[in-house]
């Protein structure tokens, strides 16, 4: 596969661009935040995207999907990222949906994925238990009792967990904290007795939940993949979600860069446009370079998945490490170059800045992913 968009992808991009520009200007995200909307995004818009086939891009036709690839999904995610649309692509499609796709039995897939593709079902993945990203660091336990498991523990940072129908939950069925082995994944209904879901508002206006499980009973048929060996599924899911998130970030920092460039090119100080100052010009050239390098590496990571290459994990970590760094660079420069006005909530650049910070840390920051890349490369 190439590193540029195919003709079909160009058409998809134009569609997505018009869609978000028309239906989801940045102002919409701000209103959802300021009104403390109880969902935090638009269910109607989400269903519209379902109708357009975008939610099912990754899923087989058998369950109502479009059976396309990360190249296509990345195009949509980048355009969503450009205008900070907060719809639950990461939580429902890339994390929850992917877990069911990669680990679920056929009956589970048939039960859950068709509604997910239409936008009627929301699914979150609950895996994180601490602030610093460490996916195997799991203390939540699941104990087998006859045909079911009882889950006990606490999860944090469950994206969009407050509105999900199912919470795919990572729990320890063997081994000790931090061990890769001994983990299992369960599809837990959000309304199961013993679950408490508390919504928290995030820096970027999006939502994540703290979820506590007090002896929540789950049927053994709701296990994804083999018990004790869920890390294989988890890794694959996280790699794919990481690539998707990177594509979204690409759109966000590209837009932040464009807006900053536009500001430099129009804002005057001391009688001249500030974009004429060499110091700022060189920094703009550097941002441009970083941005374009990020684009190349994200496209390659998408190809790695779509081609089924054996370096998916390396590419995913490489993409996220780069995108996290670029998010930090462009986010920071965008505020600095906008000056005082960039500090106001009214100016939209601050919304980009916050989203970029949240995305930088979500699914692991640059340090985590360079570390992982090094391990994958054998050093």
């Amino acid at each position, binding site marked *: 596969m190439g590193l540029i968009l195919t003709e079909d992808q160009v058409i998809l991009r134009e569609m997505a661009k018009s869609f978000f520009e028309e239906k989801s200007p940045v102002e919409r995200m701000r209103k959802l935040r300021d009104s403390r909307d109880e969902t935090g995004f638009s269910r109607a818009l989400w269903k519209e995207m379902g109708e357009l086939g975008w939610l099912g891009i990754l899923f087989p036709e058998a369950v109502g999907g479009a059976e396309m690839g990360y190249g296509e999904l990345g195009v949509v995610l980048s355009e969503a990222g450009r205008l900070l649309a907060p719809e639950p692509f990461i939580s429902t499609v890339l994390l929850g949906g992917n877990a069911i796709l990669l680990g679920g039995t056929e009956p589970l897939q048939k039960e859950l994925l068709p509604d997910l593709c239409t936008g009627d079902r929301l699914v979150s993945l609950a895996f994180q238990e601490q602030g610093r990203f460490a996916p195997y660091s799991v203390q939540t336990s699941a104990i087998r009792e006859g045909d079911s498991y009882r889950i006990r523990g606490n999860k944090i940072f469950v994206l969009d967990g407050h509105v999900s129908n199912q919470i795919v939950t990572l729990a320890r069925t063997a081994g000790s904290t931090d061990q890769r082995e001994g983990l299992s994944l369960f599809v837990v209904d959000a309304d199961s007795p013993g679950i408490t879901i508390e919504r928290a508002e995030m820096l970027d206006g999006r939502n994540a939940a703290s979820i506590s499980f007090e002896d929540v009973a789950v049927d053994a048929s709701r296990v994804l993949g083999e018990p004790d060996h869920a890390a294989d599924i988890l890794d694959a899911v996280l790699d794919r979600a990481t690539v998707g998130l990177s594509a979204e970030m690409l759109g966000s920092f590209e837009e932040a860069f464009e807006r900053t460039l536009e500001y430099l090119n129009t804002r005057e100080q001391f009688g001249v446009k500030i974009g004429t100052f060499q110091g700022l010009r060189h920094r703009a050239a550097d941002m441009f370079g970083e941005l374009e390098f990020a684009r190349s590496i994200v496209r390659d990571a998408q190809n790695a998945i779509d081609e089924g290459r054996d370096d998916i994990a390396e590419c995913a970590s490489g993409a996220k490490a780069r995108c996290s760094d670029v998010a930090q660079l462009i986010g920071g420069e965008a505020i*600095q170059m906008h000056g005082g006005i960039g*500090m106001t909530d009214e100016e939209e650049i601050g919304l980009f800045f916050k989203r970029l910070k*949240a995305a930088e840390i979500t699914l692991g920051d640059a*340090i985590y992913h360079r570390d992982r890349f090094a391990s994958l490369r054998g050093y």
Partner: protein
Amino acid sequence: MSPETLEEFQQGVRSWIDENLPADLRVGNRKDLPGDSLGKWIKAVASKGWVTPQWPTEYGGGGLDRKQAAILMKELKAVRAPIISSFGTSMLGPTLLELGTDEQKQEFLPAISRHEVKWCQGYSEPGAGSDLASLQTRAVKEGDEYVITGQKIWTTGADKADWIFCLVRTDPDAPKHEGITFILFPMHQDGVEVSPLTLIDGSAEFSQVFFNGARAKANHVVGPVNGGWTVAKRLLQHERTTDGGSEGGITGALKENLTDIVKREIGLKDGILADPTLRQRLAAQELEARALSLTMRRAGEELRSGQVGRDIGSLGKYRWANMVKNEQDLAMAAMGAQGLGWSGPGFEDTQLERTRAWLTTRADSIWGGTNEVQMNVIAKRVLKMPE
């Protein structure tokens, strides 16, 4: 009557404080001080003239000399008394004392000394930024008044202010520094509209102020008409010597020691911070803070000794801003997802505060001279590079 010695003065201050300062105010400058108590305290301090201890008594000041004033401050700080200061006491007052007419002093200083009238500062404008002198707010003379049209931004406390000291353009044809006038007028009038500005950290201490035919008396011009730039610069010098005042100004560092935060958030493993990359960054950060503080100390020593080469003090604001920002970045990195909260359960209050502080400090490299302006100044004034 023989002149009071400094020791006697100090004793007098101590007993006066003992009598007048209630226990519930001995907690330093906090925002939630009990209103009644505070009101009484302010009245008591004002009655001695000690809101403005060095101002002449005729304007409600304390008439103290520098040494006495220093003793007063020391004693007040020793018992953690709330410090009463305002834009009036720290900025406008000293400027009026120096450059105001007798009528202006009589009219404005006593109310400042009583802490009764709140002032705000109308300097910055949208579109001006670092280039303050390019301001566009117009003042046109009509009889013995000026009619003012334009817009100010970053006005601290404008929503609570009674009066404003304001830079306006009175001669649009003159070179940009020469058509500016420094003028005073009341905020509570038609033609003045205040619109609070929310910042990215959620705070709302600043406002935009819109003037649409606001009126100022011609005898409320301070200094010469079209000579306001000099007055404005003089006032900014007062601002600097009084450390920015308590309202606004540049925002501060972490409440808790960075090293403690990182150690707690990351944890140690065999006595070593569990993340080796953040460990290197933390060491670099501690060393940067030391180097900054040593350099500022050295700048002071150079100044006092007269052993001055290149002006190293000029680095202060720039390096300080970067240091504070990096400190917050590092705290954020240590918190990971726990640093992404805005409200709701799952986050400790200190974590939420730190996240806001991280946002607040983004301004440190912008306000009070952007990093870029500071670098320009170092290149030009300190390194004498050609232009």
